């Protein structure tokens, strides 16, 4: 019994070691390509700059700043001697540590942001950059700088659109369905059933489905997916059968189908364009989520510092109250935004590392917040 267990364990190690090797290799290739790309643009600087080791050279932010200047054609504010520019302060520690996956993700973001779009003029894409550089000076400990947000939105737009397209072309279209969002369209469960059907037509009778209630369809789809397709349940019918089901959780769940069955159906439709490989949509989603969690954490750290500072500062009662009110507004907004992110994924109810860190930070700030609330009011 033990021998078998060990055998399995070591073969698991072999497998995970192999995947690690592939990942490392992929990282190395990306590093080389991205470095060349960066250098091709840095060469235009006066004096020309160069990156030799991407993960090392990116740490002080100077070359990154120069790159952004070259790409945007604008001068950006830079504080001498500062370790990091505020424009991308979201990844401050990770960049400073040179963590490969983060650095590569960041460069990728920059590449996407500055790609030439045939449909939009170059000039309009530069606008957000100029507004963000001016808002850099403001001491607002609030939402991420406009550029970052725009990039995050665009990223989200890309993954979401791609996922929607996947659903449409692989499932929805065969049953005369149209999927436009990851919210209300999914409420009646018919779309879920159609996705299951596209993978295993024998499991679902689409005619029957149309006659059934929302809850019945949702329940059946989820349990079929779990028991027959091996896709863990991430949703409860009660949560989906509402006016505004949570888009993010539905997207995450549907992405599971994509991950396990990227090409459902025996034949692919002609002329089907896969803009992104199915596996990559999953990666994009994961990356976005990690990014958002990190952004929130940074915000919370900043907020905590602000709260501490406010607690200790001299200043009139009215000043303090003003600060208190603006903190409260930010706090509430962020809390609403982060609520879905902090929900445990999967039935085990465990939080991922990022989520756990975030929750810790959140709890800390909340505690301080309560204390300062009390102090100010008294």
């Amino acid at each position, binding site marked *: 019994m033990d021998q078998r267990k060990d055998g399995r364990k070591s073969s698991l190690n072999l497998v995970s070691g192999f995947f690690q090797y592939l990942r490392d*290799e*992929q990282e190395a*290739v*990306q590093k*080389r*390509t*991205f470095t*060349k*790309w960066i250098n*091709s643009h840095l060469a235009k600087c006066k004096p020309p700059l160069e990156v030799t080791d991407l993960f090392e050279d990116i740490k002080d932010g100077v070359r990154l700043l120069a790159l952004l200047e070259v790409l945007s054609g604008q001068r950006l504010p830079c504080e001498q001697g500062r370790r990091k520019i505020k424009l991308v302060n979201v990844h401050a520690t990770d960049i400073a540590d040179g963590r490969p996956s983060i650095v590569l993700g960041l460069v*990728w973001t920059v*590449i996407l942001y500055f*790609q*030439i779009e*045939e*449909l*939009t*003029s*170059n*000039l309009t894409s530069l606008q957000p950059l100029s507004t963000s550089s001016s808002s850099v000076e403001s001491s607002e400990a609030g939402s991420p700088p406009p550029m970052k947000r725009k990039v995050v939105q665009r990223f989200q737009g890309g993954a979401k659109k791609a996922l929607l397209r996947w659903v449409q072309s692989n499932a929805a279209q065969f049953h005369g369905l149209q999927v436009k969002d990851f919210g209300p369209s999914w409420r009646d469960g018919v779309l879920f059933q159609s996705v299951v059907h596209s993978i295993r037509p024998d499991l679902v009778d689409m005619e029957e489905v149309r006659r059934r209630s929302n809850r019945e369809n949702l329940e059946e789809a989820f349990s079929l997916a779990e028991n027959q397709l091996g896709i863990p349940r991430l949703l409860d019918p009660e949560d989906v059968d509402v006016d505004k089901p949570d888009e993010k959780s539905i997207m995450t769940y549907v992405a599971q189908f994509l991950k396990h069955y990227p090409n459902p159906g025996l034949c692919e439709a002609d002329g*089907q*364009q*896969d*803009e*992104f*490989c199915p596996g*990559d949509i999953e990666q994009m989603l994961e990356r976005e989520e990690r990014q958002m969690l990190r952004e929130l954490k940074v915000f919370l750290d900043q907020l905590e510092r602000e709260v501490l500072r406010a607690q200790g500062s001299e200043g009139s009662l009215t000043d303090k109250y003003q600060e208190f009110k603006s903190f409260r507004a930010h706090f509430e907004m962020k809390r609403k935004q982060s609520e879905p992110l902090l929900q445990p994924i999967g039935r085990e109810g465990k939080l991922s590392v990022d989520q756990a860190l975030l929750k810790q930070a959140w709890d800390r700030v909340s505690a301080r917040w309560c204390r300062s609330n009390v102090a100010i009011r008294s």
Partner: protein
Amino acid sequence: MLLDWCRAKTEPYEGVNIRNFSSSWKDGIAFCALVHRFFPDAFEYYTLNPTKPKENFELAFSTAERLAGCPPLLDPDDLIRMKEPDWKCVYTYIQEFYRCLVEKGLVKTKK
């Protein structure tokens, strides 16, 4: 989007079917087709051999560098070694190629 553009430009070429930014580019023919579309005098497309990816990559990248000023961001050895080209790397290169073409005035953008 970039993929549509690639498909449109390589449509007349036999042996090219671009469906994504990874496997479709594996044999190097797609790169050659794209480059040839803009620089048809640079080489003979029909003499190319899909079973010789490394040569195809080298031809495409060097031509693009020479005539479009597009820096060779991708390494043929990397491309061959991996099971499928890394889609972000291919995307980055194509995007750069496109940018160089725009700068040369070979591609119209709406302004």
